[in-house]
């Protein structure tokens, strides 16, 4: 009789555990659903904002805004273009004169020097 009762209790507990698990899974499913919905809404929102940025930076819109503000942008004429040699190969730069910290303090020249950190 004891064995029978023990068996019944075990089976009941197992059944309850199973039902609890199923209910929890359903709850998680609903949670997932609401989060997925939120994700979709946020992604849609992001898409709309991205589209708005694209529309705002469209060349025709930018030009109409500039012309409305009276800005007169145009390509430079030939006499307004000064050609520089591109930096890199063959560019000659004067070596930086190093005088030491104390001497630099009393230097009359204003110098901006970027030091390389090794």
């Amino acid at each position, binding site marked *: 009789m004891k064995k029978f009762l023990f068996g019944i209790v075990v089976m009941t507990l197992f059944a309850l555990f199973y039902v609890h698990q*199923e209910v929890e*899974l*359903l709850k*998680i*499913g*609903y949670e*997932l*659903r609401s989060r997925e919905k939120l994700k979709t809404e946020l992604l*849609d*929102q992001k*898409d*709309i904002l*991205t*589209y708005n940025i*694209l*529309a705002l930076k*469209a*060349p*025709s*819109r930018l*030009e109409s805004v500039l012309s409305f503000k009276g800005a007169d942008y145009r*390509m*430079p*004429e*030939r006499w307004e*273009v000064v*050609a520089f040699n591109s930096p890199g190969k063959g560019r000659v730069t004067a070596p930086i004169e190093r005088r030491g910290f104390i001497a630099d303090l009393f230097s009359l020249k204003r110098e901006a020097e970027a030091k390389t950190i090794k």
Partner: protein
Amino acid sequence: MHKRNRNPRLGAILLLFTASFALIFLRLFYVQVIDSAFRLSKLAANQHALTIELSPERGRIFDRNLNVLAVSRNVYSVYAVPRDMTQREKAIAMRTLASCLGLKGNYLSERLNKDKLFVWIAREVPDEKAKPLIALKLKGLGFVKEPKRFYPDGTLASHVLGFVGRDDKGLEGLELLYDKYLKGVKGVRVLEKDAKRRMIYRFESKHVLPKDGCDLVLTIDETIQHIVERELDKAMKEFHPKGASVIVMSPQTGEILAIANRPAFNSNSPSGAPIDARRNRAITDSFEPGSTFKIVTASAALESNILRENDKVFCENGAYFVAGHTLHDHKPHGWLTFREVIEKSSNIGTCKVAMKLGGERLYKAICLFGFGKRTNIDLPGEISGVVKPTSRWSKTTITAVPMGQEVTVSAMQLACAVSAIANGGLLVKPHIVKAIQDREGVPIKFAKPSYLRRVISAQVASKMREFLAGVVEEGTGQMAKLPSYTAAGKTGTAQKITPDGRYSHTDFVASFVGFAPAEDPRLAIVVVLDNPHPYYYGGVVAAPVFKRIAVETLRYLGVLPNEMIEARLEKKGGA
């Protein structure tokens, strides 16, 4: 022997109960086994199962620098369930919808008073209008999200991009031609729903993810396209043509950098535009090219070696009676060199050159340049134009064809022909889609420059470039002269044909075909204006458009102006 006490009443009750239980058992058996297998399980499945079609996102369209030209977004559409609504609820809904969406009372009344389970109220409603409406939670109104195609720059390249219908299917332009790549593959999800019609993820039986559409990367450059459209708009205001087209092409690769037409339409709202405005005139319209066609005659003459640059042609002082009619020049000329004939666009001189060349050789050259056949550009609706075989030529054809009459061409064919001269004599296949790639940016298809055939030798092409540079420097195309770059080209002013088949003296097609810089062409440009007024000469109307587009585009592309190149060469020479 014991006699059994039989109670007939008890027996009857026993029988009744036995029969009743038997009936119940039979019914149970029928319901649980037979009916369940054939009907009830299906009914239950229909009630619980929820099949959701998962729409793929339509592929995007980018310009050559990956600026977005077309993109799909989900927007709300509003529907109603009139049968679920009371008169009071309908009245509230009508008031709210009228104020939120700006819909008319008559329309709403007609929709909401239908005895139906589902009616559309408004499709593709902007979020800012839909969201307040959703928040009100009106009974009988529902909202679904539908994909909608957006074109951030509205009219920019609208003829190239085309547009899509309500069902997200391409109807025009690249949207139509590349629909199978852009549309993607639908997915499906089958799961169960609860009493409140909510999805139960626990019982998902099928989930096939949708495959988003591929992206298109075009050869179009958004900035160049904008420059072209802006200049075309200026020309429309200044010369009031019925229509206009411009093509900017890379003569070496056949890549189309810009195509613009006027009138134009906004791809975001194509239904409001007349059909005339939706036509991609640069490929769907053919016209008699007029003097721009002289580049073909001159190339054929040089290629056949029948004339040299400085050989003299007598231009009859402006009037020449040939094949039963009198040919005129717009200005009388006497003796001109062959080069001057082209520079000054003499009809009589060109006609004499063509007669010396002969019809067969001229026809062969026309075909070699690709006229009379589609260029096979990847855009829908291209026409082939009309080139009559020599067997159908009349006595006057040899005097008409060399100067661009009795043949019809499209602007795209002219662009390919002038590109052949610009690139050293090779006919390139024009293309507008650079690559098709998946959503991760992995290319599926690549367009490579393809040369169809050699049209003229490199030497003849070089000589033709000199001729055409002369047209801009000293001839009819001086208004196409660029401030800091060299340019070459040919003007054209073609009389249109009246409905009674005669050449009009009031309606013209003004055109300019050219390239820049003349010595190392980076751009081939065709400008066509249909029936401009009050001015109608190609050199006056179309050449300035070419000039403005060419100079701005070359600066944008970072092509060095002549004087900078010269300065560099001098410096190198000095060093």
